[in-house]
């Protein structure tokens, strides 16, 4: 006996698991603190909101709907806010964003399919790796 409420709650829970899985894959594979915060702040928050909606549909009582609505609003407000605070602290500390010249990402260097083609031999060939201190745009590391 599958009522429409059951189907809706299970679909919302499945969506929650899917978006949280996307967030965890982003935590695994993205190369930078900033991009990881980007992945988790959006995808993990959306997964949490879908799971809260699934719980609200499963309960289907006024009191629990009120509590879960409060939890919904709270997660919606505080997830991206916390991620913004963390990223701002990273920027204040001087954590550098990932650049393609610095191939020290935890997931390894991503595929170079999107790498810009060098124009008329402007760059030296990649016979030797770049030093860690020099940036691709010539700026100095603070």
């Amino acid at each position, binding site marked *: 006996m599958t009522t429409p409420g059951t189907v809706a709650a299970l679909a919302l*829970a499945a969506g929650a698991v899917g978006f949280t899985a996307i967030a965890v894959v982003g935590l695994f594979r993205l190369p930078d603190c900033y991009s990881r915060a980007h992945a988790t702040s959006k995808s993990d928050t959306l997964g*949490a909101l879908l*799971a809260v909606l699934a719980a609200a549909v499963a309960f289907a009582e006024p009191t629990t709907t009120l509590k879960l609505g409060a*939890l919904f609003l709270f997660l919606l407000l505080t997830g991206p806010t916390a991620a913004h605070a963390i990223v701002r602290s990273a920027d204040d500390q001087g954590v550098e964003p990932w650049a393609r010249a610095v191939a020290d990402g935890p997931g390894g260097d991503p595929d170079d399919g999107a790498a810009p083609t060098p124009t008329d031999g402007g760059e030296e060939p990649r016979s030797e790796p770049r030093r860690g201190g020099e940036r691709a745009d010539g700026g100095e590391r603070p």
Partner: protein
Amino acid sequence: MTLLADGLLVAAAALVVLGLGAGHRLFRGPTVQDRVIAANAMGTTTVVVIALLGAALGEPGYLDVALVYALLNFLLSVGLAKYVVERGGVLQ
């Protein structure tokens, strides 16, 4: 009713596994901020697991626990983010 409870329990179990997977970043994050991001994601997943367990087991008292845990998770993240930069400075 049994199908709904079982499905929610399976979803909660999958979210527990995903939260433990997010804990990978706690051990090998190059910066402190990576670890705080991972802790925040794990805390959000824990809140969701508590709410889903309350829905699956039919106990509304779990939702209060989930609300308080969400508050503490947010305070942990913001407090660590401020502490890392200012070493216990006042919020500006």
